[in-house]
């Protein structure tokens, strides 16, 4: 009489071996993937040799930044803080615009597909136009300064945060949602009492992370006249004042580091 455990083992390894087999279509997909990488490498003129020969040039930039001209910090501390303001209000606007759109895009909140489609399309549009392009529009519309910068960040980040919020809300445990529906609570009440409490930690994480990204982005917005430290950054580079550039980069590094620590601290308090 055959031992049933042994028989099961034999069957198991036989089917395991069968499952593992490479099939023809796997090789085709793999080849297609590699082919795509090579094709796009050609597209970006990927030439490692030139990059390698350029390293000394890049290094010379950094060498000329030393020693940083510390007195310059006096000139740039205001624009640096302005950069933080831009990011704060950019993210506030992003949440004010992105959250309602995210609600309309979440499949467990809106059952009627056309509404979700429209909300998603608006989010996609806002996201696909980068903050720099938005900034050019808004500088043209309302003039130079930090205000168009904040609105530009807000528009782009609304597209990003709205989508992240929608995904987070779609992934909540459906049990409490069903339980509150069963009490006769309205749709908005269900969102407030069953969905928001579940996604709060994720929302806070996203906001803090995009606040940090915003500070970095806002340094670039200055290049198109949308306020912040970016204007000084571009000016010093153009005037070959690399010791001043060094100070600006260190200030940006400092801000990002502080924000990183602060957000880690805040997130550890929300569980």
């Amino acid at each position, binding site marked *: 009489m055959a031992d049933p455990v042994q028989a099961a083992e034999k069957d198991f390894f036989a089917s395991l071996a069968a499952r593992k087999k490479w099939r023809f279509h796997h090789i085709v997909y793999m080849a297609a993937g590699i082919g795509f990488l090579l094709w796009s490498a050609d597209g970006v003129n990927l030439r490692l040799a030139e990059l390698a020969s350029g390293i000394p040039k890049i290094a010379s930039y950094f060498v000329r930044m030393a020693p940083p001209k510390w007195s310059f910090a006096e000139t740039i501390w205001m624009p640096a803080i302005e950069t933080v303001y831009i990011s704060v209000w950019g993210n506030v606007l992003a949440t004010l615009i992105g959250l309602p759109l995210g609600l309309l895009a979440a499949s467990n909140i809106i059952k009627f597909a056309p509404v979700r489609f429209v909300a998603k399309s608006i989010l996609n549009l806002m996201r696909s136009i980068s903050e720099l392009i938005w900034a050019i529009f808004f500088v043209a519309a309302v003039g130079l300064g930090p205000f168009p910068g904040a609105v530009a960040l807000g528009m782009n980040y609304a597209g990003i945060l709205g989508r992240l919020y929608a995904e987070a809300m779609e992934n909540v445990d459906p049990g409490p949602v*069903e339980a509150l529906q069963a009490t006769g609570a309205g749709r908005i*009440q269900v969102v407030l009492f069953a969905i928001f409490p579940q996604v709060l930690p994720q929302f806070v994480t996203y906001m803090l992370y995009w606040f940090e990204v915003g500070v970095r982005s806002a340094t670039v917005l200055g290049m198109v006249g949308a306020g912040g430290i970016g204007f000084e950054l571009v000016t010093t580079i153009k005037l070959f004042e690399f010791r001043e550039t060094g100070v600006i980069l260190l200030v940006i590094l400092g801000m990002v580091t502080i924000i990183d620590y602060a957000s880690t601290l805040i997130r550890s308090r929300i569980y």
Partner: protein
Amino acid sequence: MNQESTETTAPLQKRNPTMISLKDVSKTYTGEGATEALRSVSLDVREGEFLVILGPSGAGKSTLMRCINRLVEPTSGSIIVNGREVTSQRRELRAVRREVGMVFQQFNLVKRLSVLMNVLSGRLAYQPLWRSLIYSFDKADKRIAIECLARVNMEHKAFQRADTLSGGEQQRVAIARALAQQPKVILADEPVASLDPKIARQVLTYLKQIAGELGITVLCNLHQVEYAREYAERVVGLSQGRMIFDGPSGKLTDDILQQIYYREAEAGDDHDV
């Protein structure tokens, strides 16, 4: 907690008015491998009755319950709860749901909220929307919530977060949430399936007390025969979506249990709903 008649006792129930009336309710889940979860079930349940619906997994117990508060849309048949047809019109539906509390196998509390907030959630259907938008409840609602918590002996944990509680405690809070609706009916869908026997008996005792003392009609899905025998006054047996028994738990003979639980095995146990 309210002015419901507390003198409702078992013998009186015969004369109590009908609370739930199901007539030829069927449900077929569409999609791949269409399943007939309910086949023409008719059932009347009286006010204050404690009814156990017994059957194996996939018998249609959960579907039957969810048809009553329209978490599931029945394919055909009519359902009347407290004199109101459970229509699909949204306004009417919410009015019916407010009168029907539900308790789940997985408790379904919002884990990051306090016990009190979870119980107060049962009051949402009575609240204007502006109040919900600022997460505020009036004093009367808070009083109801703490009274409901006291009924399941959980008032001392009111300010704790729901995820700090054990399974049995969470289910008691879930019962308090259902009670906070001041419902006419409580639907308990496998309320003790994830609890150990001692805690399970405690939870079933609370549910039975609610039916007896508050005159709330309690429908309780179970798959364990011994609990049904211990707690039920009336048992409805479901198998493969059909009602094959309806009577007092004393009449639940081995022969009938055989019918409820083993018909499926003969037919092949490959459909699990």
